[in-house]
């Protein structure tokens, strides 16, 4: 089983969109996939996918609920959502720092359970930037996909994050350039951050119109969908 963390230095890079569509495409390519939302600060999957849940990733990681109880089926893959209620967001915000080590333990045990059940890929939709939950998500992952918006890049901030977290934890990292208008920044970014840009996904005004549906499934031939499908194939070929 491979665990992929979808992460970014800044918010609004299209992490959640990529996480959902990557999960859908991996399933299309015959891979058993689970999507975990671990963005406790600003959960958005419930609204984006338009689905309901009785148990949340919060319950799994903070209260020790079995991961299976939090999984909801959608389009051939399973997803566990973060609880978007204000009470729950406040509860997470007031967790003691030491609690996050227990959270890591529960996350690792949940992943072990999913592996035993024959899941091929777990995709973690993380919170942006550097937080204790982010460190946990990255530490528990095998591969990190660092999502950057071509029109809004903070090279020095991203570099600090790469050196301070990814390098220290020894993670395999690839950059996904999102909302690409001109294909001229790839080499510059690769050179400055010393990380391979594994995929460039075109900017499209169609994407926001498909809230509540899985874009790459509804629009299979759209360049954005093709880009994500190719990314899924590359990730599978990496083994």
């Amino acid at each position, binding site marked *: 089983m491979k665990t992929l963390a979808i992460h970014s230095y800044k918010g609004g890079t299209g992490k959640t969109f990529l996480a959902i569509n990557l999960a859908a495409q991996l399933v299309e390519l015959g891979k058993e996939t689970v999507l975990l939302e671990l963005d406790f600060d600003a959960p958005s999957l419930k609204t984006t996918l338009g689905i309901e849940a009785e148990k949340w990733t919060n319950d799994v990681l903070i209260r020790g609920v079995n991961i299976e109880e939090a999984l909801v089926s959608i389009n051939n893959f399973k997803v566990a959502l973060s609880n978007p209620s204000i009470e729950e967001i406040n509860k997470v915000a007031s967790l003691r720092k030491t609690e996050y080590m227990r959270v890591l333990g529960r996350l690792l045990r949940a992943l*072990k359970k999913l592996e035993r059940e024959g899941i091929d890929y777990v995709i973690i939709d993380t919170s942006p930037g550097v937080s204790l939950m982010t460190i946990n998500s990255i530490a528990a992952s095998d591969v990190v996909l660092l999502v950057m918006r071509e029109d809004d890049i903070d090279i020095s901030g991203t570099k600090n994050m790469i050196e301070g977290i990814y390098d220290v934890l020894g993670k395999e990292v690839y950059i996904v350039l999102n909302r690409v208008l001109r294909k001229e920044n790839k080499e510059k970014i690769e050179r400055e951050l010393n990380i391979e840009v594994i995929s460039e996904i075109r900017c499209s005004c169609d994407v926001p119109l498909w809230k509540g549906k899985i874009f790459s499934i509804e629009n299979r031939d759209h360049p954005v969908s093709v880009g994500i499908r190719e990314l899924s194939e590359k990730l599978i070929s990496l083994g």
Partner: protein
Amino acid sequence: MGEDHLGVNDVRDEYNLRKLIELNNRIVNLLVDIHKKVEEISELVEAEFKTLNMQMETINEIKELFSKDEMNTLKELDPTVLLSLPDYLRKTLMELSKHEEATAETVSRNTGRSRAIESLYLNQLCRMGLARKKRVGKRVYFSLR
């Protein structure tokens, strides 16, 4: 008369000599006992010094790994610790995190390193205050602090 016979004085001398020999033997036995005791004390002191040296080595190892400020925060275990640990200890800590509690053998099965090495690393984590251990019969179980 009397030259070949023991006089009263001779008998007294022999009696005194015997007494002296007995006293001498008692003194020798006491000295042997004292020597044994001194050896025991010396062994105990040597063992204490050994333990003290090991503790000093550990303290020095930890000092090398962490600055003074970080030492103070180690009492509280949070995920930022993962970023300050050397690779070999992080691997052990990550594996230990997957279990409520685990023996060195369980950890070694999943890290692919020997049981003895994992035991060493787990004990180091305990000394650093990141893990704790308990003995149940012959087995030692480690868990996160």
